[in-house]
């Protein structure tokens, strides 16, 4: 048994395996299945200030080794989350990451104000959701637009703050450096890639929004490259994700410099995958004669 603990910007994780926002609801179903206490952390479904019903039309479409989703941040709103799910997640021995998105700067700021009043471990600022018409990824493509938001959020946010970056950013390394300059405690990357599918019978996009977000094994090599570039460029810790579906994938992201990793799409095909990855990582470290997971972080 190796030591899987990691210190992520002052927050202690029992292992570096975190469930990604939007792929685990609020943890209730997976807790029934295997117990959230076993995980390093869990990132909530992306919240917006007010509840959202999400997008109409087709929300999921497959492509070889990937899926495109257009869920559109269906969520109960910050108040609904606090009322229905916050105590539940806090009752679990796992890091409680609350993912917050918004349609406008005010949305984000009001959301932060509400979350300042409650107990949680980390806020993951989502400036990378590609599936909403206003806001979301709109804040996370150009560094200087993102800077204004991150600066304002940081100035009022009393919790640990990490910023979740979009692979659709003009310059993701630049964006990450900006987050560090503005006082973020960490970075998570990547959200989904803006993608498209066309229904050739109907002669139009499959998605009502036109585009959707691509995730799954198909994006892993690019996500890994971006994680590597960002981890080399900043001193704050990085949480890597994008198509991780085996323990070997997780090891790659850790070696690339991620201090923790998030598992997303893979939970849809195997809801217990997070535990398999924790076990695989542990055995790998043992087999290499390594005492701690920290020994492989950023070695490439």
């Amino acid at each position, binding site marked *: 048994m190796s030591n899987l603990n990691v210190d992520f910007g002052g927050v202690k994780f029992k292992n570096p395996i975190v469930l990604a926002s*939007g*792929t*685990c*609801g609020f943890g209730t*179903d*997976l807790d029934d*299945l295997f117990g959230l206490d076993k995980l390093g952390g869990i990132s909530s*479904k992306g919240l917006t200030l007010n509840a959202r*019903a*999400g997008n109409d039309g*087709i*929300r*999921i479409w*497959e*492509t*070889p*080794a*990937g*899926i495109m*989703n257009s*869920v559109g941040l*269906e969520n109960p709103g910050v108040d609904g989350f606090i009322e229905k799910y916050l105590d539940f997640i806090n009752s679990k021995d796992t890091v409680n990451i609350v993912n917050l998105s918004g349609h406008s700067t005010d949305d984000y700021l009001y959301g932060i104000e509400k979350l300042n009043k409650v107990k949680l471990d980390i806020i993951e600022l989502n400036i990378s959701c590609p599936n909403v018409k206003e806001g979301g990824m709109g804040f996370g493509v150009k560094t200087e637009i993102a800077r204004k938001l991150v600066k304002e959020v940081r100035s009022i946010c009393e919790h640990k703050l990490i910023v979740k970056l979009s692979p659709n950013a003009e310059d993701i390394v630049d964006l990450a450096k900006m987050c560090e300059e503005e006082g973020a405690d960490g970075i998570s990357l990547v959200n989904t890639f803006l993608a498209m599918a066309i229904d050739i019978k109907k002669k139009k996009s499959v998605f009502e929004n036109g585009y959707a977000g691509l995730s*799954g*094994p198909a994006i892993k090599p690019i996500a890994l490259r971006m994680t590597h570039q960002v981890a080399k460029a900043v001193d704050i810790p990085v949480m890597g994700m994008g198509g991780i*579906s085996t323990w070997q994938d997780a090891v790659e992201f850790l070696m690339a410099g991620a201090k923790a990793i998030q598992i997303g*799409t893979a*939970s*849809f*095909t195997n*809801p217990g995958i997070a535990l398999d990855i924790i076990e695989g990582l542990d055995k790998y470290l043992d087999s290499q004669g390594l005492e701690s997971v920290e020994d492989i972080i950023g070695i490439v």
Partner: protein
Amino acid sequence: MGNIIYNKKLTDEYYLIKIQQKNDAKMGQFCMLRAWDNDPLLSRPLSIYDRDASSLTFLYKVIGKGTEIMSKLKEGDDIICQGPYGSSFPEVKGKIAMIGGGVGIAPLYYAAKEVSKESETEIDMFFSLRGVEILREELTEVSDHLTLKTNERVVSLVDYDQYDYIFTCGPDSLMQDVYKNAKGKKATVYASLERRMACGMGICYVCTCKTEDGNKLTCKDGPVFLASEVFKDE
């Protein structure tokens, strides 16, 4: 030796696959099946057509890549089956109509088999299929009257005044018509919905359906709903 007991071709399109798996599934529930690695990426949600304590049988129609791969599986091959998931049809007595089309036959066959164990129950089945008919013998066994049509709608052949309960599963348009025709009559209508799914267990939020109470998850709150929750009065 894998868990597939048989994978029987019924027609060019329809197959019945029986697998070994301990379960306590209820009528109307479904499982997520996969026999492939990353392409397609997702598992396929299939309603339970039949079961006993150690096996599950699914009726499927070959439509895309996943069901194409499934259709080539043989006895002794392996298939991963997660579940059962979702809500179920209620255990009821009385006069019941089961109305459906295509693979919508699947959950209704098992529901009829279960419900018909009650002595005070009478079941009339109305099914429509495109092309070639399937499972006439099996459906006859679990029903009192069977109307099985090909290339013909059955919704208008039902006398809606007669029934205490109606179970329906098929295309949304068929179920909407059933709901509309039964409106104002004594029958309580339950509908089993089909939606694109990713996880099957409530974590991905792609299979939502709109109800009077806001969005619900077809996989977890459904697939069986009171029809009045999910279909609109037109």
